[in-house]
Structures are given as C-alpha cells and as structure tokens.
C-alpha cells in the first residue's frame, strides 16, 4: 500500500513523515519521532498508558492511526515540563508517590491534564471517574488521586495569581 505524508504538530513542533496508513499513532510518536515517553501497554484501548492529547482531547494513541491525526496538534508527556521545571502534575506524582513502576504514569498524567483543563476543581469521585480509562497495577490509585489533587490546587493557585510564581499553565 502507498505511503502517505503526515504532518502533525507535536508539543509545538511541526513533525512530518511518510507512513503506511496502518501505522498506529503511538508508533509514529515512539518509533518514527523517538518520543518514547508515551507507552504501549495493553494495545487494546483498555489501559490508557498510551494516552496523548489530539486537538486538545485525550485519546488512546494505540487506537488511532497516524494518518487520522494528520494535521492535528498533539501533546505528549514530553511536552508537559517547561525546561527543568516539572508540570504541576509531574511534580504532584513525584511528591505524593503517585507511581511505583511508573509504566502507567505518562498516560495518567496526560489524562489528568485533560481532566483538569475541563474541571479545575474535581472531587475525588470526579478524579476517579476521570482516570477510569487508565489502569495502574501498583499503587491502588490512592496516591495518584492525591497527586492530581495537589496539582489541581497548584494550578488553581497559579490561575488566581498568574504573575506570582511563573508556574506553567495547565496543558491544553
């Protein structure tokens, strides 16, 4: 089958490639662009480890073709930190021990970023519902919820006082 040209904006940079239409978005990111922070977990759209944002919507990149994303804006875990300053969600997962093996963490953070962009002050139930498409087999989710709560509070504070800390804005 003929290769097709794909042009996407990944973490603010235009990236292009000629790909087979059957190439999955997650493999475009990992194998073609070398952005291996996005993980392949179950490869069946269950676990959410491959979650990225496509045009601002969280998506399971194992269940989307690269050609479907042609023309789209994509945000991955590599686009979250500002230089050496971790995104509040990354810092939250660090501070609250929101990970053990870390395999689910990039997807957890991207899904949480989507959740907080829509709902800056979610209840615990809303957080648990918001990450219900992301599986963690280590933590039991308790510290993941705490990490998201910490980040939500920090992002709200930064929103209220945008000039004070220079904290990065919420993703997408």
């Amino acid at each position, binding site marked *: 089958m003929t290769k097709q040209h794909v042009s996407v904006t990944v973490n603010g940079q235009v990236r292009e490639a000629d790909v087979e239409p059957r190439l999955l978005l997650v493999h475009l990111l990992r194998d073609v662009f070398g952005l291996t922070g996005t993980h392949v977990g179950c490869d069946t759209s269950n676990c959410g480890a491959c979650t990225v944002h496509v045009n601002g919507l969280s998506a399971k990149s194992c*269940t989307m073709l690269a050609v479907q994303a*042609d023309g789209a804006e994509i945000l991955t875990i590599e686009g979250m930190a500002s230089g050496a300053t971790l995104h509040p969600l990354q810092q939250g997962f660090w501070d609250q021990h929101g990970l053990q093996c870390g395999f689910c963490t990039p997807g957890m953070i991207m*899904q949480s970023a989507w*959740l907080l962009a829509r709902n800056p002050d979610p209840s615990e139930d809303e957080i648990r519902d*918001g990450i219900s498409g992301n599986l963690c087999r280590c933590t039991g989710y308790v510290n993941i919820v705490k990490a998201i709560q910490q980040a939500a509070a920090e992002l709200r504070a930064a929103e209220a006082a945008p000039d004070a800390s220079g904290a990065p804005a919420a993703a997408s």
Partner: protein
Amino acid sequence: MIPAAVDYVRPADLGEALRILKEREGEAKVLSGGYSLLPLLKLRLAQPALLIDLQAIDGLDGISRTDDDIRIGARATHRRILEDDGLAAVLPIMRDAAGGIGDPQIRNWGTIGGSVAHADPSADWPAVLQAVHASIVLRSADGVRVVPARGFFVDTFQTGIEPAEILTEVRIPLPGPKTGSAYQKLERRAGDFSTVGAAALLTLGDDGRIAQVGIGLTAVADAPFAATNAEDALRDAQPGDELFRDAAAAASRQSRPADDAHGPAEYKRAMVTEMTFRALRAALGRALA
C-alpha cells in the same frame, strides 16, 4: 498488534465519500471515531483494502430538534451526547447510556453512528434506540433510506446497512408529555461492555395508564432486541411494581443469553429481570417527575 496493509482517504464531503464507497464497494470500510473499527483491524478480524475517514465532513456530528423528532448526527461522540442538557431533559436515557460507555478517552472519540453500524451485541446504543423507537438514516450515492431501529440489528455485528451506504443520522421521535426513560447497565468492571443492559421508555396517558412503551435489551441475544412480550404486558396497564415484575419476567423469557466470561446464561436471565425492573421503575419516576 498491527493492522493489515490498507489505504486511507479522508473525503471532504459526503458526496465524495459515497462515490468512493460505491466505486470500492465491498472492499472499503467507513471510519468514524475508530474505537470499534481499529480493534477489529488490529485483530485482523476486518481487513478492508481502503478506509474512508469521515472526520473532515461537516454537518455529521450535530444534535438538533425538529417539531417531530430529535436528530443526532452519526459522528456525534458519546461525550457530546452525554453533555447535551437539552437532550437529557427530554430523553434522559441518552445520558444514562452515554455515560456508561467505555471510559473518558473512548467517549471523547467514539461515535453513536460508529457504534450502531458496528453492532456489537454488547454495545449499549442499539437497545436504547429500539426502546425509543428511533430510525436510522442511511445514505448512498443513489439516495436515502430511513429505516426503523427495530429490525435493523439482524445478527452479531450485522445490520441492515447495504455495502454502498453510510449511516449518517439517528432520529428519535420527540416524546410526549409524561414520558420517562432510563437505561440500566450491569457491568463486571468499570468501563466494560454490558453483561446485561435494559432500556425502557414509558409514556403515561391522562388516565395514568401506560400509553406508549419501549423496552430494548443489550447483550442477551445474538443481536440486541426489543422485548415485545414485556411491552405487550405493559401497554394500557396501570404502572406499578407488580406489573413491572411481571413484565421484566416476560423480558427475561424472551432473552437468549449465552454462557460466556461475563457469566452463565441462567445468571444473565435473572439479571434481565432485575435490570428491566429497575429501568421501568426509573422511567416511571421520571415520567411522574
């Protein structure tokens, strides 16, 4: 898992999509959100030569209302349906069902038309659409057909869509006053397909009796179906728990569940009774609210 080699086009309008589909009849598949089709491609249960992606076609994802019906574009995502307050006000069953489909990422991308065309017997929309007496709009290069949801789902993964047709819209008759509707889903794990799903719609007459009724069942037959025996038991009767128990039992007797990883058939039949009863009760509560 890697899909088999395939070509991909993203037509700019529906006419072009229909023309390509007709030219490549039998070897092309229509791609909407992809959350049903991509897993099939990856398992190589489907190996089309061409994917026709509908994402660039305007006007397929809206939710609108006419004097007679509610029209939901095939590319309306589960999330869009979930968050439509106007729709939830007249047909809360739509919010019930949309909120239980998959998980947030799947609801962001999966569409009602994709789910209906895919026709997984455990998917929720087919039973809901039969309960609310919906119609399915099918377009081809040669014209348009509007067919009832009842009878559309012919078997597991099989519908009445002809190879050169694209499902473009779902139409639901605007319910009259004193209508209540509800969907009750039993799932083993959060975000799973239904073990059993029961959809119910009740419209009460001025005398308080049930004037109109619809019941659809998910995951308990080769294809989702309308529980017509239960509907017959309910029509023109005075609503109440005893009647609902009898009707739910009739729905269970009409179901044909299979033993599988979700549970044995006997368990599922018992759950049809329970979930149908709960859906009827919830629908009545909303009709009286």
